[in-house]
């Protein structure tokens, strides 16, 4: 059969991860996939070499608008690894609470966008509605809805007043019901089972070969989670479970994310129960010479930072590795054999940025004819497959109760 190359991308500059996928298709089947990235390289590592250790977390928070707690968290761990300081108890709990709030809002954002992608706009509206109070909570804890700037080497910058804790607990409790409802609504829907199961399967063996992390790995039965394997912050002080399923398809990744959201709420509740008044930071006056490694579990997987210090105020090398960097190449395994209508969904299941799919050019090699598809047209392909399944099953779109 004739092979056609479908370039997806390269980028949409207002969002953070412009990527470029080049899919080789035979008819509707993807037979080969290639990924290119770094269309918006910002030189963060080079910039870090000119900043002091106190300034770096502010830059790192801006690597990603969503993981703005995980990168500074990994930075603090790397520096604490280098100079061997211990964070006081209250500081550890505060760190855990902020990291979990970040995970909840990131996963809800993903659920909403995934719903939008397959034509379930109600899921999109509801998930984003429930995300709002989480952002308000972040504001309560750190002063910002996003870009928390709350972590520093040795502890936290801002404390939560002890008297604000009951109110916070109430807000967190109010999240349980809507998130459970959303989880059940998504997991019980037969159309979603038909649409998402068996698509974009990443086997356990491939997951290990490509060294993937986070929900992408846990959806494929690889039970890794930095929070459990090398506990930081307060994760060894509260009881919680690593959520892991073994199917490896898009549905499995959705299940992992939804269950994790509920688990995160539980972790925050337990942290709020156990937190006690006290110091929030250990003062660090000097950075010794040496090297340090820190890693933390971001919503999308493990962030990994390496620092080398020569004893001055500036690092001589700072290395940042974001989770998508390891997860993205695994497309080579999960994309091949998929239909073109599912390609966008497989991209989405890994939770990179959607921005890259803004413009698609279909190039037919032999005739040299070029045909540009917009995001709407590609989205329409994805939605129409869902509608086809719905009509075959004789079902209407997912209906959630309106208030």
């Amino acid at each position, binding site marked *: 059969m004739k092979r056609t190359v479908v370039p997806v991308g390269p980028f949409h500059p207002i969002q953070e991860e412009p990527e470029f996928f080049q899919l080789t298709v035979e008819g509707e089947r993807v037979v080969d996939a290639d990924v290119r990235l770094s269309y918006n390289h910002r030189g963060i590592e080079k910039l870090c070499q000119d900043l002091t250790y106190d300034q770096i977390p502010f830059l790192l928070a801006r690597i990603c608008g969503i993981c703005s707690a995980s990168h500074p968290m990994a930075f603090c761990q790397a520096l604490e*690894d280098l100079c061997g300081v211990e964070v006081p108890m209250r500081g550890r709990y505060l760190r855990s609470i902020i990291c979990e709030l970040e995970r909840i809002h990131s996963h809800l954002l993903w659920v909403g966008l995934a719903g939008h992608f397959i034509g379930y706009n109600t899921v999109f509206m509801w998930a984003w509605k429930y995300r709002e109070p989480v952002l308000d909570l972040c504001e309560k804890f750190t002063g910002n809805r996003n870009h928390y700037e709350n972590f520093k080497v040795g502890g936290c910058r801002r404390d939560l007043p002890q008297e604000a804790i009951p109110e916070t607990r109430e807000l967190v409790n109010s999240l349980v019901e809507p998130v459970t409802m959303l989880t059940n609504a998504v997991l019980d829907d037969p159309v979603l089972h038909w649409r998402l199961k068996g698509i974009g399967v990443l086997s356990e063996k491939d997951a290990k070969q490509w*060294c993937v992390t986070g929900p992408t790995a846990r959806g494929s039965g690889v039970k*890794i989670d930095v929070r459990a394997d090398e506990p930081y912050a307060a994760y060894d002080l509260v009881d919680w479970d690593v959520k892991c399923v073994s199917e490896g398809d898009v549905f499995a990744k959705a299940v992992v994310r939804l269950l994790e959201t509920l688990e995160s709420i539980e972790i925050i509740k337990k942290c709020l129960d156990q937190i006690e008044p006290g110091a929030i930071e250990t003062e660090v006056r000097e950075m010794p010479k040496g090297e340090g*490694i820190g890693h933390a579990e971001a919503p999308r997987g*493990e962030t990994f930072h390496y620092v080398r210090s020569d004893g001055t105020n500036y690092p001589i090398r700072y*290395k940042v*590795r974001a989770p998508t960097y390891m997860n*993205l*190449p695994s497309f080579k395994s999960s994309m091949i054999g998929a239909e073109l209508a599912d390609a966008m969904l497989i991209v989405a299941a890994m939770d990179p940025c959607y921005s890259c799919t803004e413009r698609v050019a279909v190039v037919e090699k032999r005739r040299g004819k070029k045909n540009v598809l917009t995001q709407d047209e590609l989205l329409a392909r994805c939605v129409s497959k869902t509608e086809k399944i719905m009509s075959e099953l004789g079902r209407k779109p997912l209906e959630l109760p309106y208030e």
Partner: protein
Amino acid sequence: MSQEAVLQLLRDQVEHLVDDIFVRNKKRIYIDTPPESTLEVNRILFAELGGRLATASGIDTRDRIEVLYHYCLDPDGQVVTVRTWGWKPEPEIDSVAQIFPGAQFVEREMFDLLGIKFRNHPDPRRLILADDWPEGEYPLQRDFPKRRSESEYVERIEKMVRTES
């Protein structure tokens, strides 16, 4: 496994290939490896000890370029770092990506930014830098940006204009 057990395992498996194995703290192990046995040490860590390659960092230390492969031994909560190097001005080491594909991206990145050549890399294309980035300029090397004379700039701009027209 405790750190002592991991350390013992490493001593049994790779000690004859490496210069030094040492412990920084209770979660971090470093292995100093000469370039000729890097490939074998990485293979043992990935295939036999079940390590997951977290990433690799390259550092320009003036006369050589160090490459550190960081492996997470997840069930044990340990991070094992394999440190190797290539000599400047033309650093070259064996590619780990020929053992498993997860190392492809990071090695392509290190070639772009630090100029290390990876022998037998399955897909040695550019990853980070633009296609029209000049050859032989590596932004994370210490002497970057290189000083240029005015005439060099004029020459480059003229060349760009020529290729566009």
